[in-house]
C-alpha cells in the first residue's frame, strides 16, 4: 500500500488542467496483449480467406445448398410416390382430417375461405378444377408445387410430406358441402 503510494508520487506528471492531474502508469500488460493478439489475427484471417484455402461466402453457401437440395428432392420424391390409393385409404381417418383441418385453418383459410367457399383463391367445394383433375393426387401436387403465377404458394417448401397429405385429405372432405357465399365455378367441370 505504502509502496503503491510512493510509486504514485513518482508517476504523477506535472500536468494540470482545471485541477485535473495525470499519472503516467504503464499500460496494463494483459490489455496490451489482447490488443496485439487482435492485430496479429487480422492479417492471418485475411490471408486464409482471401489468398489461402478458406472458402468465400458464396462457395460455402453452395456447398451447404447441395446437401439441402439433395434432401429436398428426396422429400419431393416421397410426395410424388404417394398414390391415389394411398390417399384414398385415409379419407375416413378422423385424426388425419382433424390435423388437416388445423393446417387448413392456419395456411389456406385466408385465401380459400373458412369453408372452402373460395375468396382470393378458387372454390374448393365444387367439381370445377382450375389445375389438375380433382383427384387427390392432383390436389396434393398443386398444394405441394403451388401455382406461382397466380399466387398459390409452394407449400412443399413449408410443409412436411405428412402435412401436405393431411391437408389434401381435409380438402377432399370439403367437396360437395355447398357452403354459403360460394364463389362461382372456375376451371373445368370434372365429374
Amino acid at each position, binding site marked *: 500500500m505504502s509502496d503503491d503510494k510512493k510509486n504514485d508520487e513518482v508517476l*504523477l*506528471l506535472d*500536468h494540470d*488542467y*482545471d*485541477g*485535473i*492531474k*495525470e*499519472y*503516467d*502508469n*504503464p*499500460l*496494463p500488460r494483459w*490489455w*496490451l496483449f*489482447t*490488443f496485439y493478439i*487482435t*492485430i496479429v*489475427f*487480422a492479417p492471418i*484471417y*485475411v490471408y486464409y*480467406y*482471401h489468398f489461402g484455402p478458406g472458402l*468465400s*461466402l*458464396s462457395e*460455402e*453457401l453452395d456447398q*451447404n*445448398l447441395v*446437401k*439441402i437440395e439433395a*434432401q*429436398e428432392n*428426396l*422429400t419431393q420424391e416421397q410426395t410424388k410416390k404417394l398414390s391415389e390409393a394411398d390417399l384414398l385409404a385415409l379419407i375416413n381417418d378422423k385424426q388425419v382430417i382433424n390435423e388437416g383441418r388445423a393446417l387448413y385453418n*392456419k*395456411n389456406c383459410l*385466408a*385465401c380459400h375461405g373458412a369453408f372452402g367457399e373460395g*375468396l*382470393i*383463391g378458387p372454390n374448393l367445394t365444387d367439381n370445377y378444377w382450375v389445375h389438375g383433375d380433382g383427384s387427390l393426387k392432383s390436389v396434393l401436387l398443386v398444394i405441394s408445387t403451388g401455382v*406461382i*403465377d*397466380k*399466387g398459390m*404458394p409452394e407449400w412443399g*417448401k*413449408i*410443409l*412436411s410430406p405428412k402435412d401436405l397429405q393431411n391437408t389434401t385429405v381435409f380438402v377432399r372432405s370439403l367437396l360437395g358441402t355447398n357452403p354459403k357465399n360460394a364463389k362461382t365455378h372456375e376451371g373445368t367441370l370434372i365429374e
Partner: protein
Amino acid sequence: METKQTYNDKIVKAFLLATIGWAFVALLLGVIIAYQMAYWQANFDLEWLTFGRLRPLHTNAAIFAFAGNIVFAGIYHSTQRLLKARLFSDVLSKVHFWGWQLMILLAAVTLPLGFSTGKEYAELEWPLDILIAVVWVVFAINFFGTIAIRRVKHLYVAIWFYIATVLTVAILHIVNSIALPVSLLKSYPVYAGIQDALVQWWYGHNAVAFFLTTPFLGLMYYYLPKSVGRPIYSYRLSIIHFWALVFIYIWAGPHHLLYTALPNWLQTLGMVFSLMLWAPSWGGMINGLLTLRGAWDKLRTSPIVKFYVAALTFYGMTTFEGPLLSIKSVSALGHYTDWIVAHVHAGTLGWNGFMAFGVIYYLVPKIWKTKLYSDKLATLHFWTGIFGILIYYISMWAAGITQGLMWRAVDGNGQLVYPDFVETVTKIVPLYQVRAFAGLIYLIGFLFLVYNIYKTIKSAPSDQPEEVFSAPVIKNKKGIEFIPKSHRHFEGLATSFTILVLISVLVGSIIEIMPVLSLDSYVSEGKKVKTFTPLELAGRDIYIKEGCYVCHSQMIRKLATDVQRFGPASTIEESMYNRPFQWGSKRTGPDLARIGKKYPDAWHYKHMINPRSVVQQSLMPNYPWLADKKTDLYILRKKLSVMKNLGVPYTKEEVANADILAEKQARQIAERLIISGGVNASVEDLTRKEIVALIAYLQALGQKAINPEGEL
C-alpha cells in the same frame, strides 16, 4: 497579462435544459414503440403514429436531441475550463443552440408525416440535412475558435476527443447525405445499392463512434476526475487508446453487412477491424475505472460516481459485445434479431444515458450555484435505471437468440423446423411485453431526475453571476518547453493535432469507399436487372415513407437457412438501381427481397388493410389509409428524370410518359383486385390509391431479372 474574464455558462444552462426536455421525448417515444411491438393495437390505425414512422423519430430524438444536447452542454462547459478561455463567440453559441433545437423540432414534425430518406439514423430530408451541416459548422467555428484563444498551452485528452468528434461528424454527415432533390421534402441519394449500403453503415457505425462514444469519453475524462478528485490513471494509456480508436473505428462499418451482397473484402475488413477495436475501447473504460483507485468509497456515497461507474461498465460490456457480434458466425445468428436491439440499448441507456445523468447531477447544482435537492432521489433514480436496463437487456437478448435459433433450426433432413415465420414472432411477443415494461421503468427513473432538477433549480439564488477566472496569455504558443518527438509537444500544436486526427479518419474511409464508387466493376453484365416501372417506383417511395424497412429486410444473406426460407441469396445487381437501398437491419417481419408473386394482389390488399385477416398472429400494424390516399402520379416524371440523371437507365419516353405508364399499370391491378379479389370499389377510384402502387412494388421485388432462367 492577466485580465479577469467570465465563462459563458448561460449557454451551458440552455443546453442542459434542452437535454432534459428532449430526453423525456426520446424515452417516451421508446416506450410507445415498445408497446406497439408488444400490442399491435397501440398503432391506433393512425398513419403518423405507426411504428414505421415513430421508430425513426425515437432514434433521431435519442441520438441527436438527447445525446446531442448533453454533449454540447458538456463540451461547452468543460472546454472553457480546460482551455481557460470564454467561448469564442456568444452569438455563435446562441445560433448553435437555437439552430439545433429548430432542427429537432422540424424533425419531430417531418418524420411522423412520413418525410424520410429511408436511411437509418439519417432519415431527415435534404433541407434538414443542410440545416444540420450549417449548425455543425457554426459549432466547429465556435469550438476551434475557443482553442485558438486558449490560455493553456497543452490540450487535455478530453479536448482531443472533442476534436475528433467535431471533425468526423461533419465528414460523416455530409458524405452520407449527398442527394439530388426531387421536391422540397423528397430526394434520391447519389449512391445506389451496395454503395449506399456501405456509405450508410460507414455513417451509421461511426455515428455510434463519433457521436455516442468519442464525445462521451471526452466528458468522462473531465467529469469523472472532477467528481472523485483523483488524477487520471494513465496518461500513456489515454494517448494510445485515443489514437487507436480514432484510426480503427472508421473501418468497422461493414460489420453491419456480413453475409450480404457487399463484396467479401469489405466484409473481411469490417470484421478484423472490429476485433481490433476491442482493446482500444476498453482502454477508455480501464482508464476511467482505475482513476477511482483510492476513492472507491465515493461509489458508496455519491450517486454521481455510481452513474459514472455503471456507465463505464456498460461501455465495457457493449464494446466487448460489439466485436463479438462482428465475428461472421456470430453475426449470422444475431443479425436482424433483437440481440442487436439489446446491444444498442446497453450502449445508449447504460453508457450514454448514465453518463448524461451523471453530468446533469454534477453540473446543474454547480452552475446554478446551489446544492442538489436530494441525493437520495438521485440514488433511487440510479437503481431504478439499472433495474430497467437489466430487464431490457436480458429480455431482448433472450428474444434475439431465441428467434435467431428458430430461424436456423433444421431437422434431421435439413428442412427448416419453423418454416412459418410468424411462429418465430409469436414466440417472442411475451418478451416484447417485458421489454416495454422495462422501458417504462427506465422512464419513471428519469422522472425522478426531472423532479430533482426542478427542485434544485428552484432553490438556486436569483442572482446568477457568471464564474470569473483569470489566466495569463500564452506568449509563444510554439516555442516553450520544446521536447522533440514527444506527444506532449504535439498537444501544444492544436492545428497539427487536428490535421493528424483528420488523416486518421480519412485513411480507412477512403480505402473502403473509393473502390465501390465505381459500381460497374462489381456488376456483371449478364445479371443486370430491369429498372422499376414508374408505378413501382411510386410504390417504393410509399414503402420508404411508411418506414416498412424498420421491420422488413430486403437482403437474403448467403446463409443456407436464409436461402431455404426466402429464396436465392440477394445479388449486387438486384439492388443496383435502389436509391436508397432498403436492405434493412431488423427482421421483425419476414424478408421481402423475393416477395414478388408469392401471393396474389388481393392477398396483399387484405394484408395491408388488416394483416390479421390473413395471418392471425401477425403483429404488423394496419395500414387502412393506403386505400384512401391518392398516389401523386404527376410527380413521377420528375422522379424518373432525377433517377435518370443519377444514372438509372430510363428512356426519354419513360420519363416523359411516367404518369401515363403508371396509370395504365395501376388500372390493370385495380381491375384484378375488383374481379378476383372481391375489393369493393370502382376501377377509377382504386387505380389512384396508394395501396395499388405499393402492391405493384411488392409484386416486383425479386422479379426484375432480365433473363430469369439465368444465374440469378
